[in-house]
């Protein structure tokens, strides 16, 4: 579950202000958040993930109040409970497909990279049909394939919450719906809560619920 109460957030040196009085997303619910550019969609995701902290109010994600955690605690929470999918994929060009999927384990000493984890990464790759490209450098993949790699990376730690920021923003129409379907299927398989930010209403309609930033604030 994700719960927001009396949230207020403002970036330093900016007039933009985000206010959400009350928001609740149930466990395993698949929600799309829509709104125009600059409406605060990505900011809201960052607050859900604990990447940013509100000036007022609280944010609970996966049953934990991330808004009151320390930086360190939020990072540790994020590693274990949150999977992130980015619009620009944010893969490391100098790593292979498999290494990109395993990235959280390389970055976090608390996560132990063993054969079970590698096997899980291979299964995830099979699930999104990129298992034949595991040894390939990501620079040689198509946009759709890259986003599927990013999806596997987000799912590797078995998060209870998946946050996707414009996951189809850089995809061509033929890849877009395929990736959306994979995102929805994998989230359901993982019993994870899925929140996706998108400006694409076609994509939003695939989700269980659509929230408009205009009505949230």
């Amino acid at each position, binding site marked *: 579950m994700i719960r927001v109460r009396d949230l207020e957030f403002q970036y330093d040196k900016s007039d933009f202000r985000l206010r959400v009085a009350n928001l609740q997303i149930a466990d395993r619910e698949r929600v799309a958040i829509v709104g125009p550019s600059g409406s605060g969609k990505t900011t809201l995701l960052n607050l859900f*993930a604990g*990447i940013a902290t509100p000036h007022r109010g609280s944010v609970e994600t996966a049953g934990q109040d991330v808004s009151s955690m320390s930086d*360190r605690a939020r*990072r*540790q929470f*994020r*590693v274990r409970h949150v999977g*992130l999918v*980015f619009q620009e994929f*944010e893969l*490391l*060009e*100098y*790593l292979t497909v498999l*290494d990109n999927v395993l*990235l*959280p*384990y*390389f*970055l*976090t*000493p608390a996560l132990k*990279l063993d054969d079970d984890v590698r096997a899980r990464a291979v299964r995830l790759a099979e699930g999104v049909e990129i298992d034949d490209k595991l040894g390939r*450098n990501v620079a040689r993949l198509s946009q759709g394939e890259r986003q599927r790699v990013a999806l596997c*990376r987000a799912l590797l730690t078995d998060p209870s919450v998946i946050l996707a920021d414009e996951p189809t923003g850089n995809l061509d129409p033929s890849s877009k719906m395929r990736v959306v379907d994979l995102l929805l299927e994998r989230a359901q398989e993982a019993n994870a809560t899925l929140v996706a930010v998108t400006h694409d209403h076609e994509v939003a309609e695939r989700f269980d619920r659509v929230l408009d930033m205009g009505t949230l604030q």
Partner: protein
Amino acid sequence: MPGSLYLAWRYVAHHWIKTTILTASITLIVFLPLGVRVLIQQSAEHLTARAEATPLLVGAPGSPLELVLNSLYFGTEMPDPLSYADVDSLDAGGLAQPIPLYTRFRAQSHPIVGTSLDYFAFRNLSVADGGLFTLLGECVIGVRVAEALGVGPGDAIVSSPESVFDLAGVYPLKMRVAGVLEFSDSPDDDAIFTDLKTTWVIAGIGHGHQDLTDASAAAGVLRRDSMTITANAAVVQYNEITEANIASFHFHGDLGSYPVTAIIAVPPDQRSATILRGRFEEGDLGAQIVVPSDVMDELLRTVLTVQTFVLAAVVVIGMGTLATAGLVFGLSIRARQREFTTMVKIGASPASVRWLVASEMAVVLSAAMLGATLLTFVTAAYGPPLIRALLL
């Protein structure tokens, strides 16, 4: 392998061009001062050891450095010659054992050293294959000569003419290799040793030719009377000394007037050395006596001064190179800010990111240190002979 080290390795491997350039630059800047010091130190030790092993050197008046470089290291600059009578005088004086040297000639790039048997005991040279020269026209060669020319006992080496255009000059002499010396890690390894008289034959002041009293030599006779036969230029002179013609070889004139380029003087004790030096320094013997180690110390002082300037320049360049490398790293980090932000978002701590960057730098620096170390070892192994060849 820890995750950050693995990521660092993958990063530097992927950007191998940048990594190679950085590594090479740092390698060079670390190696240069080390290499220069090792090179000069080892070369100096080697040169000094040979000079210190040679107590005194007698030569014609002139440059002491030229005398030492030619006599000890067989350099190409030839000092003015002494006469063999000076060798006899030194011997008769009883203050030092004289070992004559005549180093005027070469066989290709290898110096031909005319000397006596005493030279080999003096330099602690031993024979690896064959034996020392016994007859006129034989030679003993250093091991590097044997390797370079592919010759061994029983083969032949031909001396090189001094000038291609000097038709009236010295003719090449074909010498039989009697033996090959053991490796000594000295200029002796590159030299061809003969009896002093053989080098006089090369010089043309000793020779063998047809018997002028024989009818077959008529074409070589200019004039004949009851007491003297005068030969002309057509007389066939032998350019190889064989069993068949060795008896015809002879030396005209007084051997005391024949040339040597230097005399190694080995005094039995310090007192004799001092007395001997005093006699030469009085200046009326028509020759100079030098202490080779003193001459080499002077040369090496100059080299060390140059080394200081070189090292100072290298340090300045090095600082510039390291600053450039630092700039490259800084710009790289700046360009990767988005990557690092993503890592933090995924869950990496800022410390982890710093470890990652530090690991990348460590990989480059480690490779550079390894490279510099290897280059230094290679320099220590192969550099000094190269320096000696360049110096001499």
